[in-house]
């Protein structure tokens, strides 16, 4: 099958640079699957997992938070504020973050920024899910 180049770049450096057959990501408007020869486009992504099918049965999962996807004729770039490969995720830290966010949400104090706590929870949950292979 035809492959194309995928780059996942974050402010802390490139995370992924590889050739794949298919990229599947969660855009804000819904699930997206991209294969070689896709029309150029740009779409913002949700906090979620990006699956890279490397060919055959191998695939890789990357946890993404806050970013967007750019498709060009010869390559796909994902610009994210944070991205981690499944095997690199620090589960203990993610769990801690999840608990902290949950506690904040339950506290129901006025000065807590709910939206931010919710986002933090989403990010932590996403990372845990990705590291456990759940999509």
């Amino acid at each position, binding site marked *: 099958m035809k492959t194309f180049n995928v780059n996942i*770049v974050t402010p802390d450096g490139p995370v992924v640079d590889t050739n794949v057959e298919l990229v599947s990501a969660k855009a804000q408007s819904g699930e997206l699957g991209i294969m070689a020869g896709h029309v150029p486009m740009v779409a913002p992504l949700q906090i979620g997992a990006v699956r890279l099918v490397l060919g055959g049965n191998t695939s890789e999962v990357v946890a993404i938070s806050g970013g*967007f996807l*750019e*498709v060009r*004729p010869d390559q796909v770039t994902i610009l994210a*504020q944070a991205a981690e490969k499944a095997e690199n995720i620090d589960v203990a830290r993610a769990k801690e973050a999840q608990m902290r966010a949950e506690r904040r949400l339950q506290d129901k104090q006025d000065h807590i920024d709910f939206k931010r706590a919710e986002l933090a929870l989403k990010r932590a949950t996403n990372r845990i899910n990705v590291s456990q292979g759940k999509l």
Partner: protein
Amino acid sequence: MASLRDIQTRITSTKKTSQITKAMQMVSASKLNRAETNAKSFVPYMEKIQEVVASIALGSKDVTHPMLVSRPVKKTGYLVITSDRGLAGAYNSSILRYVYKKIQERHKSKDEYVVIAVGRVGRDFFRMRGIEAIESITGLPDQPSFADVKEIVRKTVDLFSEGTYDELYMYYNHFVNAIQQDVTEKKVLPLTDIESSGGRLSSYEFEPSAEEILEVLLPQYAESLIYGALLDGKASEHAARMTAMQNATDNAKELISSLTLQYNRARQAAITQEITEIVGGAAALE
């Protein structure tokens, strides 16, 4: 003339100081290395986002976004990037002097501007002049990751969107090389001067729409501009500190050698005097 012991004490203490400055210089040198690596790994992200922003914002003329439009300026925001600690030569003072001069030139009253301070030195500088920074961050790590600065960066961009200020300037030391750092002024918001690098790009399809993409993209772009400046500033800080400590060590060495000379002279004078006394005493006995 100082006594032998006085000179000896001064030599010892200067030696100790030079050991400390030498150590600080080496620490800064290794931190500079890391900071440069960080700044380098940020480059691909910055280039990419710039490319996309340019092709969307310039590519489709009918798209507008509050961040792209200059509005009448009632209040100006100044983001000043300094360090937490001193001992970095002219790193902080040159930037603060520059900003302060600019502010004095541009504004007559304190209602016309606000200051956001990064670093303790900058915050205290403005506080001493009766300007309380509306937002400040101190204790930034030496190698800040994006997660470390996300809060301040987002806040800064949000304050513009909320209308707290209508334009935002950022001041930092641009890292040229280990011995040169330039004070740089950069207008961050509104994003009026987006450079298009690499010419016209393919026209994109937008999912769901260009406006909604700009909604996500532009804040992220502005945030990365600021983050880039922070990294640049950190590299400059380490470089400035390294140079300053290098100078301090050199000066200490010079001082030690001149003190040693003085010490030897004094020692010799004392010996000569002793001999003269003995000879004088012997002569008196004859």
